[in-house]
């Protein structure tokens, strides 16, 4: 079966972003970019399915700027077979989901794996929206995925613990942190990835309008916390909590 994975180019998770001086957004000049960590987990899961003989082909898709080719190449180095980049800037989740839906219609994968959230927008929407548009079942926040007999069992990390659902294929899965530990790409595989096919498309090729529906008015830094004090020992700590902060 074919597996489609979505990979998003985002600010590296180690970077503490700064709000731009004019409050139009965050300052991303010279900031390190990387594949969204949840998408790395998605790629890893797809590669494991291929290693198990469940998946036959893995297609990595990104919607983003020209530079997002780097993230597709990373996915190809990790084991994806080919890539598709839909070149467009700042597409909101509904737009991304519509593009992915159009690609799903063309490629007919049995499983689509996405990250549960992108660590820049923190939206946690795209997979669910794609599932809705494609009329598929969804296994979000997955910590375990088992494909068998035309269905997929997904164990999900929920607020109260874990829930397992059974979805008819084709289906959408979004990854949580505990699904797997992604591997690193080896140098020979990085070289090989350069020769794998990568199609560049535009939203218009799929007839999808990606005009943003939600406008960002401004972006501000969060309220700063006042620096606190160091206490000498547990007795002083308890005294402060009881008599100064009055929280215990």
């Amino acid at each position, binding site marked *: 079966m074919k597996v489609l994975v979505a990979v998003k180019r985002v600010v590296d998770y180690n970077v*503490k972003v*700064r709000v731009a001086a004019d409050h139009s957004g*965050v300052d991303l000049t010279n900031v390190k970019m990387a594949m969204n960590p949840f998408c790395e987990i998605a790629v890893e899961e797809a590669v494991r399915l291929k290693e198990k003989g469940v998946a036959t082909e893995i297609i990595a898709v990104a919607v983003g700027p020209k530079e997002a080719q780097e993230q597709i190449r990373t996915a190809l180095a990790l084991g994806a077979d080919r890539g598709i980049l839909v070149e467009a800037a700042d597409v*909101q*989740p*509904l737009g991304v*989901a519509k593009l992915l839906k159009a690609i799903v219609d063309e490629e007919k994968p049995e499983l689509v794996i996405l990250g549960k*959230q992108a*660590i820049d*927008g*923190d939206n*946690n*929407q795209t997979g*669910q*929206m*794609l*599932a*809705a548009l494609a009329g*598929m*079942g*969804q296994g979000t*926040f997955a910590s375990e995925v088992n494909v068998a007999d035309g269905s997929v*069992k997904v164990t*999900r*990390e*929920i*607020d*109260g*613990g874990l*829930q*397992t*659902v*059974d979805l*008819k294929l084709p289906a959408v899965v979004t990854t949580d*942190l*505990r699904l797997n530990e992604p591997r690193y790409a080896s140098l020979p595989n990085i070289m090989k990835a350069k020769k794998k096919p990568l199609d560049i498309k535009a939203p218009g090729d799929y007839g999808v309008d990606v005009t943003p*529906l*939600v*406008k*960002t*008015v*401004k*972006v*501000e*830094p969060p309220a700063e*916390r006042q*620096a*606190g*004090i*160091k*206490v000498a*020992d*547990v*007795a002083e700590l*308890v005294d*402060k*909590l009881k008599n100064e*902060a009055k*929280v*215990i």
Partner: protein
Amino acid sequence: MSVLVYAEHDNASLKGVTLNTVAAAQAIGGDITVLVAGSGCAAVAEAAAKIAGVSKVLLADDAAYEHQLAENVADLVAEVGKGYSHILAPATTSGKNFLPRVAALLDVQMISEISGVVNATTFQRPIYAGNAIATVESSQATNVLTVRGTSFDPVAAEGGSAAVENLGVAKDAGVSSFVGEELAKSDRPELTAAKIVISGGRGMQNGDNFEMLYKVADKLGAAVGASRAAVDAGFVPNDMQVGQTGKIVAPQLYVAVGISGAIQHLAGMKDSKVIVAINKDEEAPIFQVADYGLVADLFEAVPELEKLV
């Protein structure tokens, strides 16, 4: 304006976060309707009818909604929600699961995890692990929003007397089914609603050592949380993770024990009123957000804390 609020519950009782979501609905303005979807959940609908400020309760009581399967719930909410200007759900794993699906069915761009209401079409939400707060505006016919509970003070659970209307319709989308669940059982308060939270990190070394935190927690009536590192290492279950990609908490008191203070962890707790950090490394970033920092070995400090509180 008319706001539809989706109630969070376990078929037996209404979850407190629903009250925070109604508070966000009040900030938006207009008539507030609460939708209760579940199975054998009439008591939940009765509780929802008593919430202050709610004018109507819709009840969809059917096996199709028993486990809150996103496919079934989204079809219902998209259908019922058509007549409303706003559809709100708490930003819990349940709300995050089905509401984007509703938005896509209605062809609208949802706004996730709002932390503030500027006016009926303008909202604030944290992005980049809370390192920036975006103000966003939507001119769409329906505004579909999840609400960060800790950002809105709950409305009163009593005082209202709304009518409960039964929705006869129910449909199973037929693409998913419930297999089972493993829910953590705990007599401690719920993490996101607790007044005091004590969290342990990698510094705890193993799951058994969390007993030390449970003992302090039980003396204080606190909930116990954890960093991702502690969950990944298998010390404690996933539902205890606090952070950007776990639970967001904002208690009166947050005590971080053996946690370094990575931005992803801070994103989940830095709106707490008072923060205490216990860490043996005086350079640990957690001290930058702590009101009271104690540089100490946790294996000495925590047992002592248990004696003194």
